[in-house]
């Protein structure tokens, strides 16, 4: 088998095949006619591959499955306007630029892609090599002062990740934390898997899975095991050394007595679950996510090692294969326990760890 040659690049041009059909012997004419007919199909495929370079599949390796997943990152600059995606400033394979936000978005999405592919065999957000699009320096029009102003936010808009630069008072740029980048990318993964509806408990789970894989991405890049990890989300984006946005280890303590935003409201267990109306953070999706976040932390600490391995596998398979749009905390608990049992055996340390974690946060 010709592993070294790409069959797509080895097509004899049609005019030569036609000449062989006119001039060749019987066998040559038959081969040329078949090649002419196959070539039409291959030319159409090559055109598609040029448009979708992630679909690199050597098809003619009979009996072999060989697939190479490649990350495709594109970072755009909104130039402090609100048009998306903006101006392309760093493409896949392109070198570092002077703009820290651009480089952070590029590297962060790469690390998140690596986590999902290398640990869970998921090829990008859609498991089909979807390009990872990021826009930095998004701004919002201030109708009061008639000027473009910085945005205190990062979000997933259904197609791409978008990052603001912060107001410089409370927040710095939102690309600064790897876990924020991976958090936003994971919202995309959820869109393509469980599709957790963004309200009440399903919405809190949607937030939770993004915090989980955000944190795991950071831990994996830094090589931290469960004891070494700080389990904080957004520890740099809030200005001031003693503030982070969320804590999976100790919900409610990420920021305390901040002069402008007060104290972290996240509960650590169901005793303090906040029954909020939909108009308040869609029923408190960023608040009640503290409960499953803490369950993940507890399970990871009991299982030990690197959290993106066994515990991460359990949580990934739960998200990808078990949950559905209206899943509740109890569904998540039951599903993670079931996955732990399937992966590591009935009565295993892993199954016990996951069950005890959910019991400790009083979901079950």
């Amino acid at each position, binding site marked *: 088998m010709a592993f070294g040659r790409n069959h797509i690049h080895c097509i004899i041009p049609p005019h030569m095949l036609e000449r062989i059909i006119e001039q060749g012997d019987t066998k040559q004419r038959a081969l040329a006619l078949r090649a002419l007919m196959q070539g039409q199909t291959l030319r159409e495929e090559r055109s598609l591959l040029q448009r979708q370079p992630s679909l690199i599949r050597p098809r003619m390796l009979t009996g072999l499955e060989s697939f190479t997943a490649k990350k495709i990152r594109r970072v755009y600059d909104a130039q402090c306007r609100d048009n998306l995606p903006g101006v392309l400033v760093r493409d896949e394979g392109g070198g570092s630029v002077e703009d820290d936000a651009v480089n952070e978005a590029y590297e962060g999405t790469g690390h998140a892609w690596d986590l999902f592919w290398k640990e869970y065999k998921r090829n990008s957000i859609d498991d089909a090599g979807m390009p990872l699009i990021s826009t930095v320096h998004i701004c919002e029009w201030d109708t009061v002062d008639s000027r473009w102003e910085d945005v205190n*936010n990062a979000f997933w808009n259904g197609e791409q990740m978008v990052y603001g630069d912060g107001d410089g008072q409370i927040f710095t740029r939102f690309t600064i934390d790897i876990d924020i980048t991976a958090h936003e990318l994971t919202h995309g993964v959820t869109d393509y898997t469980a599709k957790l509806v963004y309200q009440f408990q399903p919405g809190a789970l949607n937030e939770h899975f993004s915090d989980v894989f955000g944190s795991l991405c950071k831990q994996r890049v830094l090589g931290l095991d469960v004891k070494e990890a700080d389990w904080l989300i957004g520890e740099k984006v809030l200005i001031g050394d003693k503030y982070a946005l969320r804590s999976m280890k100790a919900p409610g303590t990420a920021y305390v007595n901040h002069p402008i935003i007060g104290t972290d409201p996240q509960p650590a267990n169901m005793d303090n679950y906040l029954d909020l109306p939909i108009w308040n953070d*869609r029923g408190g999706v960023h608040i009640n996510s503290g409960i499953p976040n803490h369950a993940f932390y507890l399970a990871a600490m009991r299982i030990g090692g690197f959290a993106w391995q066994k515990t991460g596998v359990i949580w990934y398979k739960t998200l990808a294969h078990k949950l559905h749009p209206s899943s509740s905390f109890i569904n998540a608990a039951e599903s993670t326990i079931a996955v732990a049992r399937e992966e590591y055996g009935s009565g295993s340390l892993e199954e016990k760890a996951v069950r005890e974690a959910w019991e400790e946060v009083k979901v079950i």
Partner: protein
Amino acid sequence: MKIIYHESGGFAGLQKKYEFDSDTGSKEEADRLLSLIDNSDFFDIAQSEDNFRPDSVLHSITIDFGDRKKTLNVSSAAAPEKLKPLIKTLSKKSSYTKNR
């Protein structure tokens, strides 16, 4: 006229609030807000089921004016253009809820 504005969500999940009561507030502020409400056609905007994207900011506006009272909940991305000046004004007047 009474206005209650609540802002929530975003990646950080922070909350901001602003309330105005024309019985206690300044006439100048009341006139400005009334003008923004009129220009936004607030009472004619239908509450639609917005395809709310993760980590978007959510704005909840309740206006109680004469015999009319209405609440609109809308994300930043889905807000009608006419409503944006009112949203921005209320947002800039609001303060973070400190929780504890």
